[in-house]
């Protein structure tokens, strides 16, 4: 199948300069991006197989001697293209704060405890249908210095590859009904309200494991359409 990557799909993304997110002020280009046609360089992309993902890399609760503290969760879903087809065998990488909202990163020094049983990094590969699954701990909200009393809604960072280098996506998965959404300049940097909601997972009771873990579903839609779509679709 040959994929095309219409430029209009990028309208879902935030603009580079989003003044309410202060860190964007000095890191957004001041000159317009230069449009160009996609060449083979843009239309191809890295292909990574099972050698990148070790057994157990998708379970963030079993990487240490003991179990991490917090609310155990399953996060699963499909990586899809713009036609709704699964993106098979593509790499997903996640990283997140612990249940207290603290990252293991040395630069995160906010006064919440680290959990010796939680690193917060994971990897998975989608299967032939685009399906992926992680087991983790629900991350906590945490304060940051963007403005007075600024708090990030709980989120899990996702990095996904897809069919080409221009389908590359780094995003954040949020949890449904978070009261911090309306105050968060990063969440609200996405101009379209419907597009924002595509970053919010849905609670999945059907796949919640009794006596064990709540489940959230998060489908990720990457750029890429069939260049020659079927008629009558």
């Amino acid at each position, binding site marked *: 199948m040959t994929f095309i990557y219409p430029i209009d799909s990028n309208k879902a993304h935030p603009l580079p300069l*989003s003044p309410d997110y202060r860190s964007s002020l000095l*890191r957004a280009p001041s000159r317009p991006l230069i449009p160009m046609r996609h060449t083979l*360089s843009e239309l191809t992309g890295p292909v990574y197989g099972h050698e990148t993902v*070790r057994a157990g890399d998708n379970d963030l609760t079993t990487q240490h001697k003991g179990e991490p503290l917090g609310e155990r969760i399953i996060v699963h879903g499909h990586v899809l293209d*713009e036609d709704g087809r699964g993106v098979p065998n593509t790499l997903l990488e996640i*990283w997140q704060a612990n249940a207290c909202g603290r990252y293991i990163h040395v630069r*995160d020094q906010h006064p919440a405890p680290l959990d010796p049983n939680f690193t917060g*990094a994971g990897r998975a590969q989608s299967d032939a249908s685009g399906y992926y699954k992680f087991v983790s701990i629900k991350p906590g909200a945490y304060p940051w210095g963007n403005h007075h009393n600024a708090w990030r809604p709980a989120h899990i*960072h996702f990095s996904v590859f897809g069919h080409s280098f221009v389908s590359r996506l780094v*995003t954040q998965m949020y949890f449904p009904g978070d009261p911090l959404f309306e105050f968060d300049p990063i969440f609200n940097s996405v101009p379209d309200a419907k597009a924002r909601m595509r970053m919010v997972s849905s609670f999945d009771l059907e796949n919640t494991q009794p006596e064990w873990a709540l489940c959230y579903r998060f489908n990720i839609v990457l750029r890429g359409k069939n260049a020659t779509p079927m008629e009558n679709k």
Partner: protein
Amino acid sequence: MQDKGITPSQTVGPFFKYGLTPNGQYEWNDAFTGNLVTADASGERIRVEGRVFDGDGQPVPDCMLEVWQADSQGRFADPQDKRALPNAAFRGFGRVGTDANGAYAFDTIKPGSVPDPDGKAQAPHLLLAVFARGMLRHLYTRIYFDGEAANSSDPVLALVPADRRATLIAERAPGNGNAVYKLDLRLQGEGETVFFDV
């Protein structure tokens, strides 16, 4: 029922390092590094290095760079490139985080020429995706190589105003041994790197 449209981008944030570029500093292994060279890769070994600066000219220490490139024959390690050689170990993808001085380096093979959609040759280039705290979506740019005759007829460089082309062309540093190419990235302001809308 999911609505139409892609999932929006969000910033990689300040804390990606332990997950994406741990480089021995965290209890997590690197999926990717800045060394793309494989034993079977033919072609000229090169290093591409530089620093990343923000709009105040300050180094960006929490930037992540990803490179995607063809091999020395101009072929991509992706089955979608129908000209690809099977079983070649060269993958053409690398990832690094900048250090405290905003510096980065890739060790790789100088790529060959890749055709544009009309079959016209492009000059050798790397694709670069730039991620950082403060960047809500990554930006795409290219790295070309100083001294390549093909630069003057490259169809993508031709789209760039002449006075900005130098921001895309890495300069060959003097010295013996493997070639070192240097290119700094400026995210904003004077000498701002050209980024492409792809």
